[in-house]
């Protein structure tokens, strides 16, 4: 690693940390400026991305003029090349393992610092805006056993930084520990300690099925909330959001607004969450942090106006050491400054551990 690189990367990371700490400072011009600086950095140090960008006509003499101009790699490219500014020296490597296509990719990041700062700030804004210190009951991969799981890492960081010190996980490999979950939930009730249940959608279904089979409901302490992520497209069992949330609310005594969906990808460092305004209904819309921008594009990659459905492109400044712009096959539309997620497409892959969760459902 050269001194040039270190100097450049440290300067960008400092700017990013400042933005994450004070997102209100990042107006459109500042976003473009920082995005272009990160793009230029990646052109210099991320060889596979640079080759791609050059193919699309970009180079040191031609930088993007708008955020939408930044060359976006298809998310599948992460399966075919190490899209990182540090190559094999990455500190963390998240894998898109267990996908519907059967092949995994790697999102390699130089350091966890930016990633963790971004995820914490995003989680704080989405789920902890009241400053609550919750007990985390995790139905996501155990980060200690599966460090390659971005979701597991994310929740481990959140629980460690924001939890009450009694975090517990209930998924071990492909086993869902229903008894353990119930015991932990009852302990929280006894302690009058609000909890945050963090779960994949499919693990949540498995848990609800298990509790139904036992004819068990448990009203979580007031102030509790649940974050679910993932989906069902391409899975053997599809559950509508309406059914899932209705059952969840009834089983755990949660108000609808306390059930929050996260939308993320292993290839991103930042996350979308249901906007606060949309949480009282099942017609959810997504909000995003200041350092992340969705752009809805047509099949030719051209930005679409608000209200028109197209593919979602993410420009994530927190991806400083990988790729700043990623094209997905997920469909969405921007309406009133919020993202309506239409669905993940045929062939599109779910984040992280959804297949684990499906196996789990089959064996629970």
């Amino acid at each position, binding site marked *: 690693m050269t001194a040039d690189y270190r100097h450049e990367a440290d300067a960008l990371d400092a700017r990013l940390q400042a933005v994450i700490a004070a997102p209100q400072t990042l107006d459109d011009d500042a976003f473009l400026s920082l995005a272009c600086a990160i793009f230029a950095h990646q052109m210099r140090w991320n060889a*596979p991305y640079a*080759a*791609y960008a*050059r*193919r*699309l006509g970009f180079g040191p003499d031609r930088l993007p003029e708008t955020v939408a101009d930044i060359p*976006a*790699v*298809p*998310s*599948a*490219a992460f*399966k*075919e*090349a190490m899209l990182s500014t540090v190559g094999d020296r990455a500190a963390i490597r998240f894998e898109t393992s267990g996908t519907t*296509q*059967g*092949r995994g990719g790697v999102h390699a990041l130089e350091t966890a610092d930016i990633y963790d700062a971004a995820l914490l700030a995003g989680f704080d804004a989405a789920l902890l805006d009241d400053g609550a210190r919750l007990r985390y009951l995790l139905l996501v991969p155990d980060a200690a056993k599966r460090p390659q799981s971005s979701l597991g890492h994310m929740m481990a960081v959140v629980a460690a930084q924001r939890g009450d010190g009694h975090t517990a996980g209930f998924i071990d490999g492909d086993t869902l520990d229903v008894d353990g979950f119930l015991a932990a939930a009852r302990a929280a009730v006894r302690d009058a300690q609000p909890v945050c249940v963090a779960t994949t959608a499919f693990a949540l279904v498995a848990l609800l099925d298990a509790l139904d089979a036992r004819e068990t409901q448990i009203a979580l302490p007031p102030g509790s909330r649940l974050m679910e992520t993932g989906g069902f497209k391409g899975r053997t069992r599809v559950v509508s959001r309406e059914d899932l949330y209705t059952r969840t609310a009834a089983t755990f005594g949660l108000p609808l607004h306390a059930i929050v969906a996260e939308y993320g990808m292993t290839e991103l460092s930042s996350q979308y969450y249901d906007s606060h305004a949309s949480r009282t209904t099942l017609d959810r819309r997504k909000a995003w942090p200041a350092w992340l921008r969705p752009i809805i594009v*047509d*099949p*030719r*990659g051209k930005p679409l106006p608000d209200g028109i*459905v*197209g*593919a979602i492109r993410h420009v994530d400044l927190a991806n400083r050491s990988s790729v700043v712009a990623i*094209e*997905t*096959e997920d*469909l969405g539309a921007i309406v009133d400054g919020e993202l309506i997620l*239409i*669905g993940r*497409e*045929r*062939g*599109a892959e779910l984040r992280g551990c959804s297949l684990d969760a499906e196996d789990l459902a089959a064996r629970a």
Partner: protein
Amino acid sequence: MPKTSLRALSARAIVTAIADAADRWSDADFPPRVRATKTIEARTGYTTPVVEYALDRLFFSLTREALEATIVDELGSLAALDGFVERRGRPDGFARGVDRVIIVSSDTTIGVALVPAMFALCAKSSVMIKDRNDTLLSAFIDSLIEERPEFAETVIAQTWRGGDDPREAKLLGSADVVVAFGGPQALPAIRAHLHPDATFVPFGHRVSAGYLDAQAFAARDDRERRELLEGIARDALLYDGDGCLSLHALFVANLTPETGFVDALVAAFERVAVEFPPGVLDAARAAAVASRELLGTFRAAQRDEPAPSPMLDLAPPADAPPALLPRVLPIYPVGGPADVARYMEGQRLQVQALGVADPADPGARALAEAIGAVRVARLGTMQAPPLGGHHGGRPRISDFIRWIDAE
């Protein structure tokens, strides 16, 4: 369903009526066909040349000779559908059509329900067809009724909501034979409604593949090469790759730059794409195609190669199933037929057709058997199976009859 009055007609009269109606529909200017063409375009998003191609293939194939030959081949004679016939070395037999046939074809391309429906009518069964709402089937039935009014009481084509519609369960439960085209979720759901004694004829999702030796290809003359290349392009581009007859993956042995195969294939795709322009894609499929095109650009940039044609997916990962994207043909370089068999087995793909340069080649036939294909066809004809062939490996009329033996 009403009691059939077709039983008063001879099988030959029914065949003749069907062939005569099909002959009228073979005229592209026949007004009902013109109207149907428009509704099919609106439903499928396919362009006019594609719909015209499909209707030509459908109605030109329904000749009296082809219908009779298929029936005679399966049943021994046409007369067996009318009553008892002598059969050499076997008891006299009557191939009596079952009373009620339902054909469910809600997840298919153009007019796929029509051929089984016509054979069920030849068996003199009452036929109800659940089809897409493009009126093709009902319009053709109108033409049949114009030929013979007896069809009016025998065959109905209509649309209804599937899944939890109670009418569907009741209808399916009353059928003697149910032919169903659909996916892995629809077929078991349909089967669950059937009477235990009913015959279920499912046609699930399948892929079709091609195999070619690039060196052998290069040794052919110009005309043969051009025919093969344009045939491959036609098989892949028609119906935007929808349906089990479309070419979904091409395996090429000895694929070296010296053969010029890829460049020639790209040129053929460009020519055929003009003849059969792309249809309207929904947002999801359009985004998937766009993403794959970007990935192709990404791959080419890594190899410092020219940008590939968006219609070819060169050397995609060999450990994943073909992408099944509209108008995008994956090309898998292979060492030989054994690699194809390994790939198909590894991906657990159900194979409809194998397209090859020469279907008479014993090696091609062995490969078809190895990969579980139910048809081996010359490249360029994969989308035009002969009426006399089996569909999905099944007979055309035998599923609709019950033999009565007189001993």
